[in-house]
């Protein structure tokens, strides 16, 4: 197993470089103009000058190489400097956003808290709700619980967040006046009162997002449990006189986790990627909003950096999923 992990990690380096190059080419091939959001009152020759000032005139491979050096060499130095108060990165050029003229990483760091609070929390909530629903629905297939669970999760999944988000805002903020409709990113939790406010402003975006996660994971959990509940080993385990609880949670659940682990591992990087629509509806302004904003403004350094960090997480979590397969089902061998 260890050699496998080491091999995969080594393989990840060329893979990620290749992915970075693909993203870079894709972004440059797409119709893009960092001046797209600049008002038409600014004449074309000024826009052209501004484009050149952003370094757009340079050949693609030079631009890419510059980015690679900045991302893999300069930014880690900045991080080290931040941790240990050193000055390795002094005078070196960091990755700057075209839109804000500030280091992309600084904005990412600034936005991590709200992204993790809202999107991360919704993911945890979603999983915590989904697993019991999925397990029990399968165990009592076609019971009332199963039917209601299926109905709610499927309707929840088919209602897009651009609608469900606005719907809960109209209901809970406008009609009932219980919850704030605008997420306050300046809010700091220092005591019980501020924690309560934080809770109130998080509840709507978290629930809207959790609905999607719950629907997806509970469906996979249920179907995978169903597959396993009728296997011979379950009959054997029961015949051995093990309690139902042990049979279901230890034997069946463990063997049913492979697709669920895959789905969860696919979902965790997207926590970091943020939830573009939900963030916009609730004005959470996390990393998802930063990404979509940068895409609209054709702020390529920001898009490239965020997408690439996303890619790193995807590669890592898919590796973790692969390792977990081996633990869940020792028959799976990679060597």
């Amino acid at each position, binding site marked *: 197993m260890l050699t496998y992990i080491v091999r995969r990690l080594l393989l990840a380096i060329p893979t990620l470089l290749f992915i970075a190059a693909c993203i870079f080419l894709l972004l440059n091939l*797409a119709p893009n103009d960092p001046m797209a959001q600049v008002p038409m009152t600014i004449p074309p020759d000024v826009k052209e000058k501004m484009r050149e000032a952003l370094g757009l005139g340079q050949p693609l491979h030079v631009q890419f190489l510059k980015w690679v050096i900045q991302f893999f060499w300069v930014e880690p130095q900045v991080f080290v400097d931040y941790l240990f108060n050193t000055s390795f990165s002094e005078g070196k050029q960091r990755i700057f956003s075209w839109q804000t003229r500030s280091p992309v990483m600084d904005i990412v760091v600034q936005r991590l808290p709200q992204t993790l609070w809202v999107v991360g929390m919704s993911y945890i909530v979603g999983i915590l709700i989904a697993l019991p629903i999925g397990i029990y629905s399968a165990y009592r297939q076609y019971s009332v619980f199963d039917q209601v669970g299926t109905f709610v999760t499927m309707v929840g999944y088919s209602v897009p967040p651009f609608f469900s988000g606005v719907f809960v805002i109209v209901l809970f903020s406008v009609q009932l006046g219980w919850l704030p409709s605008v997420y306050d990113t300046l809010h700091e939790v220092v005591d019980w009162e501020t924690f309560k406010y934080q809770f109130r402003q998080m509840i709507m975006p978290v629930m809207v997002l959790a609905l999607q996660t719950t629907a997806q994971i509970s469906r996979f959990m249920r179907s995978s449990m169903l597959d396993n509940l009728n296997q011979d080993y379950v009959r054997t385990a029961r015949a051995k006189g093990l309690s139902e609880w042990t049979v279901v949670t230890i034997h069946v659940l463990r063997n049913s986790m492979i697709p669920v682990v895959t789905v969860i591992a696919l979902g965790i990087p997207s926590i970091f990627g943020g939830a573009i629509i939900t963030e916009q509806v609730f004005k959470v302004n996390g990393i998802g909003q930063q990404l979509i904003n940068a895409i609209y403004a054709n702020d390529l350094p920001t898009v490239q950096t965020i997408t690439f960090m996303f890619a790193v997480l995807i590669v890592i979590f898919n590796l973790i999923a692969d390792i977990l397969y081996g633990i869940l089902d020792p*028959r799976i061998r990679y060597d």
Partner: protein
Amino acid sequence: MTDNVQVSALNKTNNKWLDVWNEFKNHKGALAGAIIFALIVILVLLGPFIWPYEANGINIRIRNQGPSLAHPLGTDQLGRDTLARIMAGGRTSITVGLTAMLLSLFLGTLIGVVAGYFKKLDSVLMRFTDLFLSLPLLPLLLVMMLLFREPLSTSFGPEKGMFILIVVSIGITSWMPTARIVRGDVLAIKEREFILAARSIGGTDTKIIFRHILPNVLSPIMVSATLGIANAIITESALSFLGLGFPPDFPTWGRLLNDAVDYLQQFPERVFWPGLAISLTVLSINYLGDGLRDALDPRIRGR
């Protein structure tokens, strides 16, 4: 294990599809799902021929009307009949949803099974999947529009060209989860005893995949299918919203829902109808899929 027994059992009943059908029609949920889905399809296919109003028939004098006998679902801000628009939108949404879902399922299953079964291809295919998972969606779609819109619209006409482009865009940007899930299952299944047994009696790879692997990964595929169709319908609306979808005089459920969100408080029925249509379609397909899976699964069959 069981499958070996079942395979021989299948050979006894000469028509296994008859068996599947028998099981399927006894499955209440599946039957209900099938009937509702059939009704929706009939409504959106034949409705526009019977219904007197056109989806794009503007009539300013009757704008923003509530439900009435002439317009059972009311009219929109330009006086277009909502029922006519729902029916016309359904044609597009269901076709796009189904084809895009099938395409994504096909790609996902193919790559997942091949990667899971053939160890040599696993690494390459999974890194390829990682790549696709990493590519930012919007720029990818923009590039596809840039490269293929004009050639497709000259060879297939603007509407068909757009249809192909949208289905392909949704398909190739949504197959990755299916591929990873299927691969994960295949990795586990191919180590089971019955596969070893099948191989030891000289089964070829193709035969093993089709007879033993595929039936056992059917349930995650079915779940992916039902989630996929909802996903495709909603993604299509996001494409229209971004100006990457069908021409504006082409109603779809997603677009109707999207346009109506601003009017949520004044005309809640405008969000309700397209929302209901999408949910009903997804639910009916979900139950259909459930029934189909149960019917196809030899272990559950006859329980």
